């Protein structure tokens, strides 16, 4: 088992290297380059050439690649060409926002999912569970940009209850926590609606399975009250796969979603990645991709491990 994990980690590192290389090559081979983003309409052949020289972009690709790894191994993520800030600082600034956003969403989703899942499992076969099941299927199919747009339409435009964009109220010199929360309301609701659909379904299945097990029947036969069975054993056992599911969505917590962040003009990491991809701000883009890669590869590892534990027939190297 340990050996399997270590071999897998080693080969996952290979994946990350391949990933970073692919992105590096693609980003640098995209015609244009950050000089155009920086110089804008003032870009002329000579100013671009000089800027490229200053930014080190005129060196051969393999050399830039090597330099990038050299910096990385020294703990430096580079300097944003466009935004004139160290990449690490930038990432942290945007990451902060994403974390607040997504962790709130995950916490709320989990709470709601547990509640709905319990209902779904306990009332399996009867109409409450069927209704919940139908709602789950429905909400799961909702595209995030549509949900976001509708929430903005209803709760920001038609009923001006919540702000439609931004992170906080700029007018206040020291914005209150309340204003941060108000600006989070709609984005978090969007993500929550979408996540609850799948999480609660997963949890509902787990609860149903648990309720079908022998120990439950035994406990009921012995006269133990149902609520204590439910919240005592069933909940605990059913939570384990749910925790795995949440764990698998870790990459998403860190990288956020470009779509939701762009609808709400929310300056998170997903939004930053989108911007840096469009303006070819390589250091930022590659650093973000590195993070995504790390988290995704680890997430896959986790998923395969869990699967491997559950299904002995699948072979592993």
């Amino acid at each position, binding site marked *: 088992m340990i050996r399997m994990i270590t071999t897998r980690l080693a080969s996952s590192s290979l994946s990350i290297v391949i990933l970073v290389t692919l992105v590096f090559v693609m980003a640098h081979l995209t*015609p244009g380059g950050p000089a155009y983003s920086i110089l804008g*309409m003032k870009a002329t052949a000579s100013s671009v050439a*000089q800027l490229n020289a200053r930014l080190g972009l005129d060196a051969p690709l393999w050399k830039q690649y090597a330099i990038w790894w050299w910096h990385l191994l020294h703990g430096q993520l580079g300097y944003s060409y466009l935004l*004139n800030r160290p990449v690490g600082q930038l990432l942290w600034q945007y990451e902060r926002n994403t974390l607040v956003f997504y962790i709130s969403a995950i916490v709320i989703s989990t709470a709601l999912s547990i509640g709905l899942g319990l209902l779904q499992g306990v009332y399996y076969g009867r109409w409450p569970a069927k209704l919940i099941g139908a709602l789950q299927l429905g909400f799961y199919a909702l595209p995030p940009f549509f949900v976001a747009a509708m929430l903005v339409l209803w709760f920001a435009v038609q009923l001006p209850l919540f702000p*439609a*964009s*931004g992170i906080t109220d700029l*007018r206040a010199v020291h914005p209150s926590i309340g204003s941060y929360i108000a600006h989070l309301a709609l984005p978090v609701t969007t993500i929550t609606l979408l996540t609850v659909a799948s999480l609660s379904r997963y949890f509902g299945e787990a609860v149903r399975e648990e309720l079908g097990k022998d120990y439950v029947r035994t406990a009921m036969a012995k006269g133990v009250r149902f609520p204590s069975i439910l919240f005592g054993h069933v909940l605990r056992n059913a939570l384990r796969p749910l925790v795995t599911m949440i764990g698998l969505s870790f990459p998403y917590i860190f990288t956020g979603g470009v779509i939701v962040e762009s609808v709400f003009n929310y300056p998170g990491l997903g939004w930053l990645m989108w911007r840096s991809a*469009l303006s070819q701000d390589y250091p930022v883009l590659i650093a973000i991709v590195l993070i995504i890669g790390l988290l995704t590869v680890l997430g896959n590892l986790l998923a395969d491990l869990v699967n491997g534990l559950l299904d002995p027939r699948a072979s592993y190297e």
Partner: protein
Amino acid sequence: MHRTLKFVVLAAALAGAPAAHADMPAPDNCGTIVIPTGVGVASSDDITSMNPLLVTSLYNQQAASLLYQPLIWLNASTAQIDWSRSIANAITTPDNGTTYDVTLRPWRWSDGAPVTTADVAYTFRLIKAFGTTYAGYGAGGMPDIVKSLEIISPAQFRVVLTHQVNPTWFIYNGLSQLQPLPEHSWGKYTTDQIFQAQSSPSFFKIVDGPMQAVRLDIGLDLVLVPNPAYDGQKLHFDRLIFKFLDSAGAALQGVEAGDLDMANAPLSLWGAVQHLPGLKLTILPPGNSYNEIVLNFRNKKVPFFRDARVRQAMADAIDQATMVRLIDHGLGVEIYGPIVPMPPTFLSPEMKAGRYPVGYDPARARALLREAGYSPGPDGIMQKDGEKLSFTYLLLTGDALNQQIAEVTQAGLAKIGIQMKVREIEFNQMLALLNNPTADWQAAALGESTGGYPSGEDLFGTGSAMNQGGYSDPEMDRLIKESTETPGLSGLYAYENYASAQQPVIFLEREQALVLSRANIHGVRAFVDAAGNYYPDRLTCTAEGTKS
């Protein structure tokens, strides 16, 4: 022979006091004003630098100009120097174009130190140190056109050029770049350090302009406060926040919700934004820019662009009046040459009278094509010796207005038998193509600003920096040289008449800007001039009925 620059003195007399406001309510303090970048000019984008020597984007320029007072303030809406906002208070050129003597008025940095000619000399040294990284490199011939910069006294300096030039040209385009920068604050840093510190407010602590930067949240906003040591016009607010948004929709949403005080309203929404409660619509006068179709003269697939008659035919086939009416809802200006009609300062007599060499006339367009030897092919497209009049036109993605312009253009050209295919492309890739002399592009939709003295040496001179299409015409070069090197405006007039007739790019109409603002804010129209310069002292507020 002490020949004063009559033009400058006259301008000084005519400029001066700002126009009287029609409404002059008691200027209550506005508190905090929040506006998106690019108000009155373009869609919002980030401010990433505040260094006046390195700013290449409009938004950065606007921020830098609020921090650092220019040597010469050109009011773009009148094309005159506004001496009340310039650090220079007199400019003379005793030999009419080679030597320039500049006197500075008493001015101080925010830490109390006086602004002196040493700061001007420092700026010039920095400009040379930055080389082609310097944002204004080549404009007005700078810095290579300067033979020497001599400090005569703390308030006077003299610039001697390598040769005689048109004084207005050099003063507006070149000399104006020498704005004083704080040597006692920046002098201890290397150019690399200065380059890296472009977005740090702490680097820009010592300023001499109306505002100071407090905080720059990368990707979010820039917070400015009034500079208490500023000797110029007083401001009527406590904080100015520039918010960076990445869509026109977010700006509109913001001003409706009360998060923003102003926003650009897209012309396409003209009808819908007329009567929004609590908001006021201001139509800004036309700006100093034009839309254009840049043609690639180097591409062998479109050799017909080199024939001036084909270009004239194209210009004659485009119905700019309809564009202005339909696309701009009447809020636009037709443009047929390199000089925009407003202000009329630099318009040749012919242009002023509206006698353009080109204009919507499909019959004349067809005649021109016939004269050039083209005849309709079996598919209706004009052709000559097997070469079809067909080209691909590059358009920036996400630009609704230019999309519509493209559609009207396409329709107009189709009527005279020219086929235009449209392809959308991202900004960076478009610029990369345009700046690559061997790249395979044919025509592109762009825009151009005509600031300062609108000579064409950067745009249409052979081999010049912004001449992406590779246009080359000895007569054009000669006329451009005359406009920049001989005094008076006759050279400029001859150049613009020729450019309008030759259409080195196809000049197109330009839309005006619509600004939506909260009803209690006044002075919006005077806040931005035709080049996007900000006049923050013009903003005043009256108390609101309900404040959110």
